């Protein structure tokens, strides 16, 4: 419990620091953020017009610390301002829309690749040095070394353009109304296949390598040998004893990997035009939609923190040694 509380405190501090960075980032960059923001919005507005607009967007000419506290207050009350590009949509709502897709895409891809990678890793470690091991290891090395952008482009080329098996973008057929019916869901699945495959391809290798290494380290442990000596079946030892324990360090590596996953999903979303957070961020950056960029970073950080916390939690659940500590 103390462990979790400590982590929680850290995450809170981390969030505060992230929010602070977020606040200062645009203000530290060369040029007046407001100027940049509206200049790139591309309109040919007069200065009067501009000033009037600034006020409506809540750019107060207060001293920095007042701006800062106003900002913090709004962040903690869940108010991230309004998008400029999609005015007057609140940033939270815009991100909320995108979040669903990213969480779906990333979540499922992570689960699949984590499971698949872990199984492959377990299997490779168990049959270390045999052909399976070599194939899995080499495959894993390859998959983890190829940039997500390259994989998505190649996927798009092969399955989207050459074979035309899958659509080249978007989360679902725009002409179908979102609803809980098969037509819509199948469209979502159909559209999600390529980005999903890409992410799974990119992520699986890393998990497999981690799992394999952990497993190999573990297989030398006495309790594994003892389990075998006890006459437990190989599958039992492999899955119930070794894998379960090897999962612990893998899970903690998952916490770090979440950042990478987020990055990978960002490019994938951009390439496949998937309407998730990554794509939203990309579009916001192109349009210099400041409130969205800031909100986005904050949400992504929060997402990282939450998933780290979930990992911590599952760590505690998986490892009885931590329960009391």
């Amino acid at each position, binding site marked *: 419990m103390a462990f979790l509380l400590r982590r929680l405190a*850290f*995450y809170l*501090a*981390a969030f505060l*620091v*992230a929010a602070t*960075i977020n606040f200062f*980032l*645009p203000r530290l*960059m060369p040029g007046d953020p407001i100027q940049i923001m509206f200049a790139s919005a591309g309109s040919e507005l007069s200065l009067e017009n501009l000033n009037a607009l600034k006020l409506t967007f809540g750019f107060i000419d207060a001293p920095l610390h007042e701006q800062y506290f106003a900002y913090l207050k709004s962040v903690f009350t869940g108010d991230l301002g309004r998008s400029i590009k999609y005015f007057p949509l609140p940033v939270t709502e815009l991100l909320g829309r995108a979040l669903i897709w990213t969480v779906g895409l990333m979540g499922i891809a992570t689960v699949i690749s984590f499971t698949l990678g872990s199984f492959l890793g377990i299997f490779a470690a168990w049959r*270390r*040095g*045999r052909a399976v*091991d*070599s194939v899995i*290891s080499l495959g894993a*090395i*390859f998959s*983890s*070394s*190829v*940039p*997500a*952008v*390259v994989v998505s*482009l*190649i996927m*798009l*080329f092969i399955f*989207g*353009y050459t074979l035309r098996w899958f659509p080249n973008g978007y989360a679902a057929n725009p002409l179908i109304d979102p609803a809980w019916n098969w037509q819509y869901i199948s469209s979502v699945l159909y559209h999600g296949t390529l980005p999903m495959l890409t992410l799974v391809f990119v992520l699986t290798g890393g998990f497999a*390598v981690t799992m394999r*290494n952990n497993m*190999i*380290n573990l297989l*030398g442990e006495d309790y594994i040998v003892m389990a075998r000596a006890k006459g437990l079946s190989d599958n039992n030892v492999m899955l119930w004893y070794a894998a379960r324990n090897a999962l612990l360090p893998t899970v903690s590596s998952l916490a*770090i990997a979440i*950042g*990478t996953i*987020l*990055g990978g999903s*960002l*490019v994938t979303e*951009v390439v496949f035009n998937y309407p998730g957070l*990554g794509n939203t*961020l*990309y579009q916001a*950056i*192109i349009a*210099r939609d400041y409130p969205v*960029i800031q909100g*986005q*970073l904050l949400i*992504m*950080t929060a*997402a*990282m*923190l939450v998933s*780290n916390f979930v990992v911590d939690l599952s760590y505690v659940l998986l490892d009885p040694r931590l329960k009391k500590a």
Partner: protein
Amino acid sequence: MSQLLQNKKAMTGLVILTIILLVAIFAPLLTEYSPVKRVGRPHQPPSWDHWLGTTRLGHDVFARLVYGARVSLAVGFGAGLMITIIGTVLGIIAGYKGGVVDEVINFFTNMVLVVPNLPLLLVLAAFIGQASPLVIAIILGLTSWAWGVRVTRSETLSIRQRDFVKSAEMLGEPSWRIMLFEIFPNLISIVGINFIGSVIFAVITEATLEFLGLGDPNTVSWGIMLYNAQNAAALSVGAWWDLLSPCFALAFLGLGLALINFAIDEIANPRLRTGGMLNRWTRMVRIGEGKL
């Protein structure tokens, strides 16, 4: 090092890396074309004149590819070096000094680890604008050291417990010397893994940032090639060579580096090693010389 040369994976990786390195160095000898001049009509498919075809602008893809290797390698190794140096120095200091120093470094490390890296880089690059490879390398170096600190620190923590560190302390070695000469040499493989890993990361991230349009279009690099190809809708118009050439180059480089990384890991951790003995073992079992 000699172990590295005996490892098949490492050899393959080194060969790949060497090929790319040679290509980068001898780029002018490998192609008659300039990477920044129009030398053909737009989007000519691969031919004798243009081995990998031409880009939308009529640049020779092969020429851009070989010259682009320079940037990818330079950014990769430059940023990788920076990331590694920062990570190693902070990691060793945090792990060895402990106390408040450790708390502070550790806090910032964890902090940086929980801020999503690529989005942050994206925002930084966007704010900076026209991020040349050098700028990209620098921001990569400044934002991506956390993982290195973490592994170096935890390894330092365990090495610090080893008695040779204690005896060095007892001999009155100054702490910088302990960190540099007693601890650091024992971290070589970790640092090596961190370095190669950072290089992979830097290569990938540079390409990604450039692909997303945050690079400097004057650059001849694989990321910019991707960006240009994507902008020219290379796939829609069927100019696959424009897009796939840098794709495969990046995959090739990534593979080479990953193989080296994997091999270092195997060498550092003998348990992970497979090597020839398992092949021999399998053969011996098969011919009935013994069993388990």
